[in-house]
């Protein structure tokens, strides 16, 4: 517990590490989401064109 308290600076230290983790995970999630959306949109458009032909 003493190690986690960080000499009374625990709230400052852990919030920085926690926020960093959240921002990095969010960036990763956003990148994946956009990749899936762009791919799906193109797939739908191309398949619709193929069916029309």
């Amino acid at each position, binding site marked *: 517990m003493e*190690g986690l308290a*960080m*000499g*009374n*600076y*625990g709230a*400052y*230290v852990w*919030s*920085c*590490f926690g*926020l*960093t983790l959240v*921002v*990095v995970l*969010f*960036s*990763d999630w*956003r*990148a*994946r989401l*956009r*990749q899936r959306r*762009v*791919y799906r*949109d*193109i*797939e739908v*458009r*191309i*398949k619709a064109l*193929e069916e029309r032909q």
Partner: protein
Amino acid sequence: MWKLFHQLASPPHFYRLAAVIAPWLAVPGILLIAYGVYAGLFLAPMDYQQGDAFRIIYVHVPSAYLSMMAYMIMAISGGIGLIWRIKLSHAVAAASAPLGAAFTFLALVTGSIWGRPMWGTWWEWGDPRLTSELILLFLYFGYMALRGAIDDTAKADKASAVLALVGVVNVVIVHFSVEWWSSLHQGATLMRKDGPAMDPGMLYPLLAMILGFTFLFGSLLLRRVRTEVLFRERRTRWVREMILSPEGS
């Protein structure tokens, strides 16, 4: 050499190559960060002045460094796109902006959290390092807003590249602000003529974090550039063939 360069800049070639490279950057990145977090939080000795609050540097310094590096990637890629009209370089610039903004935000917030116990304030408007870093965040927002406001991709590429190049002045100011003006922010600790002014027990986890963040940034950037390339090339034959092939992306 030029042949290799042109081959790399070819969107279909880059799209496939980036898919292979991205995981190979992510894995060492995560391993280095795991070591850096553990060693930085639990093994590095406590600072004699700042106590355990100094451990915030293990996320603050890599974020601040990436905030500037992402901007330079954005500006240089935009410049290459303007001069040599390489489509891929505009895609790199566009993909770099949101990541740069995320790391600038992290650098500002973690710096502010560190400032509260050390300086007794969350923010100091008169400080050149803090203010120029905030301007950097606004430059990222401006860049993304400008891109979003112009429907024509080619025009958006040109306008945003000019903005990115002009904004390089601010990156230089961010970097040298602690040397040029009196600042609350401490001076350079790593990039000094007489070597880093840190105990090796503190230094190695920091170097691991900087390297790990760089690898992770590289992996995230490659994935974002792939998406940007796919979007820009959506009407081309190679994308159509890739989508219709049984293997997909």
